[in-house]
């Protein structure tokens, strides 16, 4: 087990390294750079060079990459050109907002997706099953920004039940703490529903098919013939085994939530990492963009690793070597 873990962690390194190389080159070889916006036709060549030098983009791209990666290895992600502050600091402020949103929508997805998947499987081909199946199809097919717009129109504009955008009301910092918490919750509802819809639908589909496979197994028949109640069979014997594939799905899904947050954060002006990355593209803020990319890739890799490890913990039949 320890050897396996060590091997996997060592495998992550070259992949992460490869990701940074490719993304760095994609970003830096593109025509135009951050200085082109600040340049003025009246500037002399020497002045233009000085501006490029200030941003460190006058050197060959390989040198730039080596400079960047050797700082990253030391734990320094560089300075954001736009914010004029360390990238790690800027990202740190936004991380919490995205993490909070992702956690709420994941909770929503687990609480709704798994039970409805179980119900769907145990009552296969009933009206309830068709309802959940169609719901799941709608969930994976609707463009999330379109769903967000529909919710905003109905709940925020036509009926002012929830606020339109942002994470908190501007003047909220002077309110009592209880009102502030209420304010944040009200702002969370719509974006969390939009971000959670796709995951809910996926969990539902996977739980249903996994459950359908499990309840046809011999040991479930044995449990039936032993005279156990339906509830005990489904929730104690079947569900435990049916959930094993869901663990893998979770490992892939959590990083996906952070990436998917990009659209939701953009539509709802939620001050998170996705919006930060999106704005960094517009501002050509390369160090910040590389920082966000690195973070998301790292999250994906660790998510996959955790999925494999927990898979083994949940299913003792799997051996690592």
């Amino acid at each position, binding site marked *: 087990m320890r050897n396996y873990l060590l091997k996997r962690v060592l495998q992550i390194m070259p992949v992460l390294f490869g990701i940074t190389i490719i993304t760095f080159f994609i970003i830096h070889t593109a025509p135009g750079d951050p200085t082109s916006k600040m340049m003025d036709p009246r500037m002399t060549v020497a002045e233009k060079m000085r501006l490029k030098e200030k941003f460190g983009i006058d050197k060959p791209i390989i040198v730039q990459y080596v400079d960047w990666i050797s700082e990253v290895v030391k734990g320094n992600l560089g300075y954001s050109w736009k914010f004029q502050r360390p990238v790690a600091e800027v990202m740190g402020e936004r991380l919490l907002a995205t993490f909070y949103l992702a956690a709420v929508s994941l909770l929503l997805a687990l609480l709704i997706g798994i039970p409805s998947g179980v119900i769907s499987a145990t009552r296969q081909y009933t009206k309830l099953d068709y309802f959940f199946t169609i719901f799941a*199809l*709608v969930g994976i097919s609707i463009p999330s*920004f379109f769903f967000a*717009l529909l919710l905003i*129109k109905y709940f925020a504009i036509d009926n002012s039940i929830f606020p339109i955008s942002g994470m908190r009301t501007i003047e909220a910092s002077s309110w009592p703490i209880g009102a502030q918490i209420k304010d944040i919750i009200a702002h969370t509802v719509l974006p969390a529903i939009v971000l959670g819809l796709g995951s809910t639908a996926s969990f539902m589909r996977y739980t249903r098919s996994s459950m359908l496979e499990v309840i046809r197994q011999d040991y479930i028949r044995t449990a039936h013939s032993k005279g156990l109640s339906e509830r005990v069979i489904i929730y104690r014997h079947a569900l435990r085994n049916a959930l094993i594939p869901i663990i893998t799905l979770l490992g892939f899904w959590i990083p996906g939530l952070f990436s998917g947050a990009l659209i939701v954060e953009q539509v709802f002006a939620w001050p998170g990492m996705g919006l930060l990355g*999106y704005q960094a*593209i517009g501002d050509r803020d390369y160090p910040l963009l590389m920082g966000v990319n690195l973070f998301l890739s790292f999250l994906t*890799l660790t998510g996959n690793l955790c999925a494999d490890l927990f898979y083994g913990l949940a299913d003792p039949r799997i051996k690592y070597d």
Partner: protein
Amino acid sequence: MSEAIKKKQEANAKLDARHKIESPWTIAFRRLKKNRLAMVSLFLLCILALSAILADVITPYDRDQINLADKEVRGKVMELPIKNEAPSSNFILGTDELGRDIFTRLIYGGRISLTVGLVAVFLQVVIGVAVGSAAGFYGGIVDAVLMRLTDIIMCFPFLLIAITVVALLGPSIFNVMFALGLLGWTSIARIVRGQILSLREQEFMEAAEALGIRDSRKIFKHLLPNVMAPIIVFATMGMANAILTESTLSYLGMGVTPPTPTWGNMMQAARSIYSLQNQWWLWIPPGFLTFITVMSFNILGDGLRDALDPKMNR
């Protein structure tokens, strides 16, 4: 005498028909036909494809035509664009912020969305099959290098990189196809590799080896036809994803740019709170069509997966 022979022949023909050996494709299609939901989706997609092909014939106006009407402004009669008009008998889905017919632009938008999806998925399948079959067939160092590359691209934050590529190359229809094609081939490569790894060990490949045929013939004639089923399912689901991503990119202004209409960039109208609240015809029809198209591809993909699965009882 001849009568008796005829009867016998007929009986034989009937017997043959009953025991006719069906090809796997006929069986799959017969099973797909039983799936009513998948057939409805297929029907919807055919209508959509047809309307995209025949867009020039069925649309009442030109794609970018700005429709004008006489209006009285301060006592003078002037010809002005009919902006943001609600649906009427002249414009069945109203007009947009420049006075163009929305129904016309929806049909042309479908043409763009479907084309982007088709080209992007074609690229994904070509790259994915090439990488997957090379890795699976040759193994060793080729496999190790190609699969590490696949791992790397698989771990890219997809949307962020897609937006970056398109933003840096400049938003255009070709760059969207390019970005989607280059970033989306990893899962099909993995599927093809896995299938080829197991097929390679089977007897018919030993026979192919004994015949001494070329590698390319082994791959294209003997291995790939056996991997067609998952490729078809992937391509169908891939269409759904490509159309969804294209519309997202175009909505964010990082995809196909106006005046070329796509469902995604038509929905940009909803960025104005006024339009969002009062002018549903600007953004709900393109959103709804995207949704229906993506759902149809997903249902068809599910149906094909079940129909092509040899483990399902016939």
